[in-house]
């Protein structure tokens, strides 16, 4: 090889404060001027490795080499000086600042003591022109769509003269057509001489974009090969280990009467991403109704309405045929509502409280767990221990704080709590986001079981594979409207959902 690899990892390990071994002796090289994919399940160590490269974290052992020289990347500032830029999965933008302010932040052009605003704006326009990434330089970032924010995030990285651009799961928030456009831009960047590190767990995308793939599994290097030399099956095996991802069985379910109905429901919200208009929908007993849509298409508003946290501006919501106008969360829960929230630690539980206090919240007012104003603490602990057992929650014990649990185990505990009420209507919002395969498979099974027992389930998920695997019917939300309704079946593919998710086509 004539030139040294632009980036090389040599025996990189990372142990976190709580003892988790995230990376274990990872070594591989990234050649200059290519699109290099890094594949792996959630928790395989992809993000930790990239945080080390970007200077957000330090390796516990091993070294990072740039252009063949070992370097210590102590902060993002140093990473930037080395020509490394990163597009974060959760964008690193300041919402109230304008596009221009976000891009020049930290390296502002000056005129005297002040920011040279004209020069800053010109810089952004030139950059956008050069890379064909068009955004309005003067609007506040919080008003932009997710895809536009991603463009800003990319421009911000490019404005720092990068040679290596890291993209961490960039397509998670995009529709298929938006993904296609992103890929076009990334190919342009490679043509302009950049090295691109593309992190993904979607094989299809890796195949479409990259020329080389590195697979991580459980913190170790599982494989490293040019894509021309390795087949999809082989990559999948490397990603999954021996066991392939189990296909959840939909089983035979018979949909019953409508449990929850929405008739002409609209929601006027301050945030455009929450607005809904003219939603007609019925969720029947014993079915899983999937909701597809780009993030911010109204899913959050829908959940707020169905959980009684917001009231519709017009239209009617019914439970079992009875209107529930004006009822709050507590009243709806008494009518059989359960909810797996999208952000499990934000809404689903309290990290500093014990597993008992997390698992019994809500049920604590039942006669089994309280007498008069007093709690029956022993009964609560016994019930929690039973839940931990039944749901395979790996935990030090019922008195441990929720923060001691991994994401998957916490989600299982929260599911145990929500499912324990034997709900008649369940909202499962991103039920398996960011958790390990085994926990996800377990939850998929439980959801199917619950539907089999006659619960009406609304499944909202950005994971199209999960959506297609579990749902009986699918509706597509776009800009607060239902733009497509389809029966799920073998013929339904992510590609067919794509145009509807972008609002390009009103599919039948």
């Amino acid at each position: 090889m004539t030139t040294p690899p632009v980036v090389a990892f040599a025996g990189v390990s990372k142990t976190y404060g709580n003892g988790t071994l995230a990376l274990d002796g990872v070594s591989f090289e990234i050649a200059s001027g290519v699109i290099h994919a890094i594949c792996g399940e959630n928790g395989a160590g992809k993000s930790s490795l990239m945080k080390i490269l970007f200077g957000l974290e330090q390796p516990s052992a091993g070294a990072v080499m740039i252009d063949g020289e070992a370097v210590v990347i102590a902060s993002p500032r140093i990473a930037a000086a080395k020509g490394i830029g990163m597009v974060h999965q959760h964008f690193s933008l300041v919402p109230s600042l304008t596009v221009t302010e976000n891009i020049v932040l930290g390296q502002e052009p000056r005129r005297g003591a002040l920011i040279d605003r004209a020069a800053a704006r010109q810089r952004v326009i030139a950059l956008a022109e050069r890379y064909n990434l068009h955004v309005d330089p003067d609007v506040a970032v919080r008003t932009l769509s997710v895809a536009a924010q991603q463009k800003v995030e990319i421009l911000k990285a490019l404005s720092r003269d990068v040679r290596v651009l890291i993209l961490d799961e960039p397509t998670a928030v995009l529709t298929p057509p938006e993904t296609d456009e992103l890929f076009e831009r990334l190919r342009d960047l490679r043509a302009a001489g950049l090295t691109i590190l593309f992190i993904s767990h979607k094989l299809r995308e890796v195949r479409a974009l990259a020329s080389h793939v590195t697979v991580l599994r459980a913190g170790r290097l599982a494989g490293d090969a040019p894509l021309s030399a390795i087949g999809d099956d082989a990559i999948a095996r490397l990603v999954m280990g021996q066991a392939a991802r189990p296909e959840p069985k939909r089983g035979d379910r018979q949909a019953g009467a409508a449990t929850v109905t929405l008739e002409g429901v609209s929601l006027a919200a301050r945030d455009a991403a929450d607005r809904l208009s003219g939603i007609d929908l019925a969720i029947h007993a014993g079915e899983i109704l999937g909701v597809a849509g780009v993030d911010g298409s109204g899913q959050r508003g829908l959940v707020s309405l169905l959980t009684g946290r917001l009231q519709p501006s017009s239209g009617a919501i019914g439970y079992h045929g009875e209107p529930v106008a004006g009822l709050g969360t507590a009243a709806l829960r008494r009518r059989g509502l359960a909810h797996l929230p999208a952000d499990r630690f934000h809404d689903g539980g309290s990290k500093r409280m014990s597993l008992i206090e997390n698992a019994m919240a809500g049920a604590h007012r039942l006669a089994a767990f309280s007498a008069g104003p007093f709690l029956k603490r022993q009964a609560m602990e016994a019930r929690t221990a039973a839940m931990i057992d039944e749901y395979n929650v790996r935990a030090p014990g019922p008195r441990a704080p929720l923060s001691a649990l991994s994401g998957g185990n916490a989600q299982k505990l929260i599911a145990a709590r929500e499912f324990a009420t034997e709900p008649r209507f369940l909202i499962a919002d991103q039920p398996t986001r960011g958790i390990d395969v085994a926990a996800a498979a377990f939850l998929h099974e439980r959801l199917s079981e619950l539907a089999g027992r006659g619960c009406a389930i609304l499944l909202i998920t950005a994971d199209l594979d999960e959506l297609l695997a579990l749902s009986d019917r699918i509706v597509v939300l776009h800009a607060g409207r239902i733009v497509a309704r389809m029966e799920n079946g073998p013929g339904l593919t992510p590609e067919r959902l794509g145009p509807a998710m972008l609002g390009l086509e009103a599919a039948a």
Partner: protein
Amino acid sequence: MIRSALVSLVVTAILLVLVVGIVLVPIAMRLPDPLAVLDMFVFGPFRNPRHAGNIVEMATPAMLCGLAVAIMFRAGMFNLGVEGAFFLGGLATVATVLVVPLPAFAMAPVGLLVGAVVGSSICAVPGYLKARYEASELVSSLMLNFAALFVGLFIVNYFLRDPAAGAMVSYKIPVDARLPRLVAGTRIHLGTVVAVAACLVGAVYLFMTRGGYESRIVGLNPSFAAHLGLPIRWITLRAQLIGGLIAAGAGGIEMLGLYQRFSWQSLPGNGWTGVVAAILARDNPILIIPAALFLSYLQVGGDLIARNFDVPSEAVGLIQALVLLVVTSSAIMRNPRLMRLVQGRGGAARPAEPKAVERSPA
């Protein structure tokens, strides 16, 4: 879990000794006999039953104010109205027993009840404004403390003032209204028993009842509470009401227990001591009892050296401030290396995690 709680207790104790030393030693060094000063501060409070009694007397309002703070903070509000509630509660109690014609046996209970209700407004109003309008309870409670002070002084000056007394003080509190003294040779009064009992009841409330459980859920994670459908506004407001009643009742108890006339000319500072006690006890009502005793021990020591040497008792304020600082310092209290050091070789393999101060400002 018990082991880690013990470790954090040991670390806290070591820190407290260090803090007292840091403030006191330089001050003592200025004087001809520094050892005598330190001796007086550290052991003086125990040499004489009257001084030991002072510790208990002073701990009484600190316990109650600390309990009030703990209950409000646990429900997630940074309500600093205890100071004003304590002041106004004391005044309203005195005003009631002075102005309202009551039979002797009813004077103290009715006076305290009225005092608690009136004084609690200083905590309840910021709580209501936050729950109803999302107005910062921090700012409004700080403002209302001073408003309570000046309105209170107005009431004393125009309605309760005894012209025969030289200063701006009220008429004498009727002897029948005063709380009975419990220990001969000291001024320890019935209020101390009330305070200790209140802390125990407070612990039962927070950890063993549905209401306490719910208020802790709201305090630790309001989004979780909303997910569960708990009536968040009512739960927080209820905690501010309870806290206000306790703090204001403490003011009344202080007046009827120790004072002859209402004579406060400025905010007495017991509320702030309560904040320090609550933080020192990590908002645990049981631990508030020793925390309050410790803080008043410092105060008695400070008063003793002030009386006997040329040192103002304000040094104790510096100690209080440092206590507040180091006890909330997670760099100290949650330092894994320090924890292991204290825990010794026999400690668990995993670094113990001491109970955190369960709060972040809104």
